[in-house]
């Protein structure tokens, strides 16, 4: 028995597969990072080699940072992502709780309606959204982006979380009711901690498309004060000349914040699993 699980060829094979996958997944990221630290000529001559003392050049980073507004772009991206994430998780979890916990007329229909957005891309409504934002004077504000991204993230969040919330023990919620906890305390103190792993998963899935999005920043908030990183990096991609050093440096820097957020959520994920529900 233990032989089967610990045999050397199996271990090697499993690791080989995992390592191969890791290499393939990390390859583009690594290429971007090493090239961001090379001179322009070296990028084109030897794109795959790491920077050597001759080719090492931080001109990309200095260009990006000298551009001045880049910190602002980062800040904008960060505000938009974190705020949208917060609202998606808050409202999504609340809607999911209502759908999972309460019996009311049209419960199933409401669930389907809320999940509809998974199948219909929000970009189809761009023109209407733009008109709406113009009418409400929200064009070129971060609020516009936060509202749109919240709407974009909610369907999947409601769908996934309501499935998980149905699995939270009824007895636990009822025990809370008998002890006199309000429905809000039951939701925030008893149910949310138990679905934390699912929340972390939803957070990761929601966060990455928001951080990477170019479409809505370009349409709804292209002003200098509200540019996001992805939009800001376009600055260096010209029609005729592209400043590859700067583009690669900007992209490398853009990885960092998502990485940090991801680490936070994945720790939540693991903690959620290990602390476990009590049966």
């Amino acid at each position, binding site marked *: 028995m233990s032989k089967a699980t610990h045999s050397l060829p199996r271990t090697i094979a499993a690791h080989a597969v995992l390592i191969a996958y890791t290499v393939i997944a990390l390859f583009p990221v690594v290429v971007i990072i090493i090239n961001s630290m090379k001179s322009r000529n070296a990028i084109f001559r030897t794109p795959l080699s790491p920077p050597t003392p001759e080719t090492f050049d931080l001109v990309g980073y200095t260009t990006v940072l000298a551009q001045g507004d880049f910190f602002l772009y980062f800040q904008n991206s960060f505000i938009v992502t974190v705020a949208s994430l917060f609202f998606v998780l808050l409202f999504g979890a609340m809607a999911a709780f209502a759908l999972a916990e309460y019996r009311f007329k049209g419960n199933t229909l409401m669930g389907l309606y809320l999940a509809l957005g998974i199948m219909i891309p929000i970009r189809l409504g761009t023109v209407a959204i733009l008109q709406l934002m113009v009418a409400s004077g929200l064009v070129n504000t971060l609020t516009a982006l936060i509202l749109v991204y919240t709407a974009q993230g909610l369907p999947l969040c409601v769908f996934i979380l309501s499935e998980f919330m149905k699995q939270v*023990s009824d*007895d*636990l919620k*009822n*025990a*809370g*009711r*008998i*002890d*006199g*906890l309000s429905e809000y305390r039951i939701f925030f*103190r*008893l149910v949310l*901690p*138990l679905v934390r792993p699912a929340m972390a998963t939803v957070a990761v899935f929601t966060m990455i498309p928001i951080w990477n999005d170019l479409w809505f920043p370009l349409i709804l908030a292209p002003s200098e004060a509200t540019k996001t990183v992805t939009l800001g990096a376009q600055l260096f991609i010209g029609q005729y000349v592209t400043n590859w050093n700067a583009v690669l440096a900007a992209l490398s820097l853009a990885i960092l914040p998502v990485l940090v957020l991801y680490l936070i959520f994945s720790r939540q994920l693991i903690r959620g699993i290990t*602390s*476990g*529900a*009590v*049966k």
Partner: protein
Amino acid sequence: MGSLKIENVKKSFGSVDVLKGIDLEVNDGEFVVFVGPSGCGKSTLLRVIAGLEDATSGNVLIDGRKVDAVPPSDRGIAMVFQTYALYPHLSVRNNMSLGLKQAKTPTDEITRRVATASSMLSLEPYLERRPAELSGGQRQRVAIGRAVVREPKLFLFDEPLSNLDAALRVNTRLEIAQLHRRLSATMIYVTHDQVEAMTLADRIVVLNGGRIEQIGRPMELYNSPANEFVASFIGSPKMNFIDGAHLGEPKAKTVGVRPEHLTVDAKSGAWKGTVIHAEHLGADTNLYIDTEKAGLLTIRIFGVYDAEPGATLYATPNPAKTYRFDADGKTLA
């Protein structure tokens, strides 16, 4: 204080009628057990009493006060669940005191009640632990402790022992019996297990398909079941049911004899049959005999009885302890 009255309570989920008119009175200090097959509505009735479900119609009165519009926390009840339902993020102490804190009980009063309850249930060494760090039996004791500190008028237990192993179940059963004696509180207890029902109950309520079949003291149910269902539900092994026509009983559709009210003899008796199987339990022996006249019978013999499968035996019922049921299953006098 601590009486309960249920008046014609009905409960439907959509088009499914789960409770079809329940009337029940529980006196102060009484221990009442609900038994019945799975899905008959025991938990639903308990949740209606607790206020976790609204009855479709009918009234629930606790201490003479109508509580239909009173939230669970203000009904003066406490409930112990099958799955323990402890708050995973709180220590044992905080699990027990949360309800009191919500009710704005003074801190020294909370400390006193938690101390009393935890010494009663030998939980002192675990007060600072989280539920995840306790065994199943300890968790269930914490759940009971959480109910005790509320000092309720009415305790509600929903199959509290069914997740415990056999030995622990006996211990915890004893603890609940002692608790009832010490607190002289009113308790309502749901179980599948008829040993629990017979040993704990002052009165047993037998439910079937959302209706009450019979209410009575354990021995009343055993000795004079109102109908075939109660007769088959109370007692283990189950009562034998024999077609009345086969026995030449014109009035009775079915005749019932408990396994312990049959005697066997190798030479003569009422019903001749062949031994199919014998279960030796030490203190008693269960024989399964296929008889010509009465069909397959279970017979419980006290002590050891050697019988090989295939052997011929005669079974004789105790005439004073046979039951006759009419076509509707009602017991005939």
